[in-house]
């Protein structure tokens, strides 16, 4: 067993080399050996997948020596594809090795008659499908690209959750998540996190669409336990930094935030606090007869935007609606409890909302 563990420990190095300029010296024999290793790792994965203690041991060894846990046990199963595609993209690979690579990856009767050639054809087909289906779409909801990225993030979080981690590593996994999300432009990362939180809610036992290899290492009874924890790191990342959370809430549409607040009570309070802050930043302009921004600060919502967000919250679950209204009433009371427009932004908001809700109820 120790021999196997030592071999597994080499995987990160193998993948790192395949992405580096070191492959410049590879000939076709080196390449064959590398691919054989990849298949061997896949074989290990398939063999130990259903044996928790062994997979845990392999996973632990795999993490040893990596700064942050980038690779885990499930990566063993994806090894041939990870390695193959990394090498294909690596321009330093010399022609003889490259020819061997594309032949064994793609050609009929290549080195391995296994699932690889078919799955790469399927990949090309799916990529073309994503081009064909990328029609202009109605603006509501998050883009499919964002959804797909969120699915991958969730799958990975699920895998992480499966690797039994010693307590106290929460900080480590938050750092890891930050590192991953930093790969994306901030707004995109916000979309991905929001989509992941909502998808987690929708998919429950259905397991996030189930990719080919993604997430198929899970089996039913483990899902429910880990599913609960999946949102944890995402919420922690959002709330860790108020500036980030504020940008998140400013960027995403009110309907989406309202449904997040409905699903995750942890978000509800901070979101209301943010809205309160933004509302206090509005001034009543008696000449125009409306609420305007105190200064031309971009990080503040306009009156219309603020009202839209509150009305989204009031369309949500009964609980969120009640909490929202209670918060507004409290703010109104604190502001002197006037029932006249133009004195307190909360009075005005509450009046408009109540009128809106009355109209809704009549319809």
């Amino acid at each position, binding site marked *: 067993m120790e021999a196997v563990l030592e071999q597994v420990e080499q995987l990160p190095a193998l993948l790192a080399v395949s992405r580096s300029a070191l492959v410049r010296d590879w000939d076709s024999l080196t390449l064959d050996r590398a691919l054989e290793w990849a298949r061997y790792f896949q074989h290990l994965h398939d063999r130990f997948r259903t044996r928790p203690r062994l997979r845990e041991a392999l996973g632990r060894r795999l993490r040893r020596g990596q700064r942050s846990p*980038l*690779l885990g046990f*499930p*990566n063993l199963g*994806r090894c041939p594809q*990870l390695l193959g*595609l*990394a090498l*294909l*993209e690596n*321009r330093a690979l010399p*022609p*003889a090795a*490259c*020819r*061997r690579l*594309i*032949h064994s990856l*793609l*050609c*009929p009767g290549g080195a391995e008659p296994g699932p690889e050639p078919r*799955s*790469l*054809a*399927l*990949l*090309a*087909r*799916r*990529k*073309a*499908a*994503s*081009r*064909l*289906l990328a*029609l202009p*779409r*109605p603006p509501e*909801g998050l883009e*499919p*690209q964002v*959804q*797909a*990225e969120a*699915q*991958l*993030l969730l*799958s*990975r979080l699920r895998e992480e959750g499966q690797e039994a981690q010693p307590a106290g590593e929460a900080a480590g996994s938050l750092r890891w998540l930050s*590192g*991953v999300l930093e*790969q*994306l432009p901030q707004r*995109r990362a916000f979309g991905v996190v929001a989509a992941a939180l909502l998808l987690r809610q929708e998919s429950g036992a259905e397991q996030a*669409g189930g*990719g*080919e*290899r*993604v997430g198929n290492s899970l089996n039913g009874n483990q899902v429910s336990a880990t599913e609960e924890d999946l949102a944890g790191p995402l919420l922690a990342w959002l709330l860790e930094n108020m500036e980030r959370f504020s940008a998140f809430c400013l960027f995403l549409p009110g309907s989406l935030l309202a449904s997040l607040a409905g699903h995750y009570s942890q978000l509800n309070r901070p979101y209301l606090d943010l809205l309160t802050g933004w509302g206090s930043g509005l001034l009543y302009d008696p000449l125009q007869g409306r609420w305007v921004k105190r200064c031309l600060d971009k990080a503040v919502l306009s009156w219309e935007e603020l009202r839209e967000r509150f009305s989204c919250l009031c369309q949500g679950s009964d609980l969120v609606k009640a909490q929202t209204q209670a918060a507004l009433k409290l703010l109104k009371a604190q502001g002197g409890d006037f029932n006249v427009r133009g004195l307190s932004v909360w009075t005005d908001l509450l009046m408009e909302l109540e009128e809106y809700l009355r109209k809704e109820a009549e319809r």
Partner: protein
Amino acid sequence: MAQDTAVPKLNFEYWLDKAIEWGQATTLESQKDVCLHLPQLQEFLHQLYETLKHMDSIAAIQQFPLIGQLLGRLCWNPFVIGYDESQKTLMWCLCCLYSSEPQNPVELKANSWIRSLLCHLLSSSKWESSEAETSAFISTLGYTSADYYCHLVKSMVFSLVTELRGNQFSELNIQGRVSTSRLNAVSLFCVPLITLPDLTPLVETLLLYHGGASKEILSSEFLEAVNEAFLKKKISLSESAVFSLWLRHLPSLEKATLYLLDQLVSVQMNSLEEVACVMKDLLLPQAASHPAIFRIVNEIFKNAVLETDGAPEVMTIIQVFTQLFLQGHQNEYKQHKFPLKTYFPHHHQPLVAALLRRPFELPTTHWAEHLKHISHMLKALVEDPNSSSLADLFEIWFLVARFGEWLDIAVEQLLKAAAESDALLWLLAFYYCPQNENQQRTQTMVEAQAVYNHLMRLFSCTVLSVKDLEAAVPSVKDVEQCCSKHLITHLLTNFLLFSSGGHMIAQEFIDHITETTDTSKEVCSLLIRTAYRINRSGEENQRTLKLLNELLQKLTLKV
């Protein structure tokens, strides 16, 4: 998809011209043209690969100097890459062109170009700027582009399905409606992807989508391609989606019906269970519970009968189809059910009702009586001077023929029960000889009656010889009327199966008549039908079943 434009083998220039003309398929016209040519292009790519795989890259480029242009253009056409196995063959061709020891700048450049194309096909690559971040993100997560595109396609499908379903229920909301041109485009873009399992929910949603428009909104290329893929079993779809396809697209229904007939006639079936299975797999009997579909299928069956002159295989197929249809109809929930007369609107309803009774619904002792009733109604209809046009006659005959199980029972009853023989013989004479212009039917009756009387005398003899039977039908070979011949064959076959002494000589006698006359197929059909009927009735008749199986085994080898 159309296969009519015959293209000479390996017509390189033809496809290069096409590839140039299509570009990246951005106009509707070019998209439709690509869809039309996809199967042929795939065939061409296969041939090209077969040629290339025996050459090295230098020889390949010498023989096809423009191959780079052709493959490169095709790689950028998502319709081509999305279609069936074209992407695979294209990549194989690219592999063949890659040289392991590039000797000159041209080969070096070609190698680099091939790698770019492969990356373009396979990776969410750094070379496509819009996806640069995605690429870094997925590799940081430890996934590959294969995982990403798997999820991306599913998300896109899910988003389109949600949009379409939401639309279906908000027809009043004009603003929210998906425009017809958008739907048409979606359906066209699905054409190459139909056999990709990820797409199935979208394909089904499209098939079930009915906008307010009276004209078909989905592209005909899409409807044809779905039908084709379904018939060839390349995809599986829900029943309701298939029914909806056939209801909205007549050519597909016609094609499916002809495909079914063709499949059943061209392949030797050893039992009607098999036939029933093929039919149910294709969902046609189930679909026929929609009266509109039933009518079309009925018309096609009628034509098949006319064209084949009532070939026994075709008649048997139609009978099994009708039985399955009735079975399905019976199993349907009451509230969705159309009354049975909807399906046979122009017929004498009491006759329809009598024929629709399924044998097992009546005690066997009532069969002869029921058949007599049918025979009398028929006779009255046929001999009514007011409704005796040839077309009317054919309609009545076809109605009786589809319920052919009752005719087989009539023969069995004649021999076993010897009851109502006049009426039953008339019924059979009508089936085999619907016209009586020159008294053919009267003549048939006379001939059949003679044979029948003779057979009845032999029915209880335990020991029989082929000679005895030949004496009963001295003239099977010489009977001039072919209608009589069929009827007598029907009587004889049943005599062999059900009489006391028939079993002993069955094999010998059947060999005899199938050798001297051209009746193998006919006898085969009769036996297969009888086996099916006995099997389904659950009747304890092991001796007859065993004989039937032996006879069929031998006979199917001959047919």
